[in-house]
């Protein structure tokens, strides 16, 4: 099961239906646009409206708060560790799966998809059961003074788990479609393995790779359930931005949770812009 989606190829996208418009057609368009505005655009706009409901000062106070600052820092640190690791994994997995044949490939692909179908809170629980004080490795970790749960390593592990398939999922179909002929040609012409990989393979999948990275990053920075279970909610220490929103919300502050949420909404807007750019770029090149 794939709970992400691949960038649509616009190369073959059909020209919209140009048969004469009918009242039925306009009714359907109005319904679709109305639904999208009420249900998709309004919630996004509402984040900003509520954040600035009492003006600029409370907004500024909320996002420059010390605990919010450390939440921003933690969110970036977690993404900066988990996204590159999943990129390396994605490149390795797609190289092995798309360019080689081996027994058990179908099973491996199913396993790669697994994190998409596990509830994020269950993902968090898995790490608590493994590394928590009562976990399987709990005694050993305590004896060696290693703290994973309620600390940065646990948050990073849970984030890697929930964002695990994003990059691999984007790259595998693209590399499979391209086959291995170009790489073989490069090798024949005397390039070594690394040169072939960096100069032939990576450039040919670059838009798909970037697309996977921004999706992976958006999920890594925005993940709530899995991180909440392993974080322990220590303000200023293990609160990421989404957890900070939750904490402020539970304090019944009318502005602050929305103010912090705008930072995540900006992340969403940036992700959407990059996605549009990538679709436009890959259509351009097709």
């Amino acid at each position: 099961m794939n709970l992400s989606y691949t960038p649509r190829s616009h190369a073959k996208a059909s020209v919209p239906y140009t048969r004469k418009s009918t009242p039925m057609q306009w009714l359907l368009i109005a319904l679709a646009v109305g639904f999208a505005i009420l249900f998709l655009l309004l919630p996004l706009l509402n984040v900003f409206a509520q954040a600035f409901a009492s003006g600029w000062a409370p907004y500024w106070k909320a996002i420059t708060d010390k605990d919010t600052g450390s939440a921003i820092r933690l969110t970036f640190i977690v993404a900066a560790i988990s996204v590159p690791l999943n990129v390396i994994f994605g490149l390795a997995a797609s190289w092995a799966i798309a360019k080689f044949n081996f027994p058990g490939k179908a099973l491996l692909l199913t396993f790669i998809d697994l994190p998409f179908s596990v509830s994020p809170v269950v993902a968090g629980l898995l790490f608590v059961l493994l590394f928590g004080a009562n976990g399987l490795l709990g005694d050993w970790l305590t004896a060696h003074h290693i703290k994973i749960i309620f600390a940065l390593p646990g948050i990073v592990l849970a984030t890697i788990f929930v964002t695990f398939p994003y990059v691999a999922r984007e790259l595998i179909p693209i590399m499979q479609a391209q086959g291995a002929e170009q790489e073989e040609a490069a090798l024949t012409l005397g390039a070594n393995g690394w040169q072939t990989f960096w100069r032939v393979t990576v450039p040919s999948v670059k838009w798909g790779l970037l697309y996977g990275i921004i999706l992976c990053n958006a999920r890594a920075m925005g993940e709530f359930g899995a991180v909440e279970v392993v974080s322990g909610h220590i303000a200023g220490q293990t609160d990421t931005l989404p957890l900070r929103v939750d904490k402020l919300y539970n304090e019944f502050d009318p502005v602050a949770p929305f103010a912090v949420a705008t930072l995540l909404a900006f992340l969403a807007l940036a992700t959407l812009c990059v996605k549009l750019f990538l679709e436009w770029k890959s259509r351009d090149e097709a």
Partner: protein
Amino acid sequence: MAGHFETGPREGPGVSNPLPGGKITLGFTVFYLSVIVLLPIAALVIRACHLSWSELWTLATNERALAAYELSLGASLIAALINAVFGSLLAWVLVRYKFPGRRWLDALIDIPFALPTAVAGLTLANLFSEHGWLGQFLVPMGVHGAFTRLGVVIALTFVGLPFAVRTLQPVLEHLDRGVEEAAASLGASRTRTFVSVTAPTLFPTILTGFGLSFARALGEYGSIKFISGNLPRTEIAPVLMVARLDQYDYTGAIAVALVLMVFSFALLFALNGLQGWASKFQQP
């Protein structure tokens, strides 16, 4: 389409492959997968095996747990149905009609995918509350969208919508228009063409989109935490699991987690079959 890799041996030079790095990349892939995904899942299974089955069964099936599954399944089902209807409408309008702002509408579809679920829950709860932009009209009419079961359905619909649209959209784009034109030239009306030619071809794909958004809804937690208001009436299974964990009831949390895992593996299995079936309809 989503969920389909070619796994059979390829023909041509790929089979006896001179490329380097096969063993090391495969080794790293299996190692990373084992550490990040398989080992933690094994931890759950090992822990569960050490618990008494009767205790697990009692905790997995007590009244509170059954009510949570019921709401999880019911609300996810309703949300997925709404998404199947409106997702199909959106995909249809985006692919078949030309109108100003079509690109903007297309971009809006991804909002639930890009917006962190905590933010989605926060803003939806506010939108449907008494003083919210929508709630100020709806609450006087008796429609309470915040801190109710309706709110749970609203949030689950929001997070699942892109799956329904984006599953159907590429299939619609590549649909062979010739068959529809043939039906029309044989005298079928537009409605008749749609009902007897277009809709049956698209049905498996719509069902796949329905399944994907259902699966997404079943595991959802972040948005629900905000919009459900932590009430017994609005408790879904993932919320129950976290509530038990917060009280250090590990056995209770494991029991719910196992049930959720069974649900998701059953869905994974069903969806893989469904996507295989759907892809048959996409071949001209």
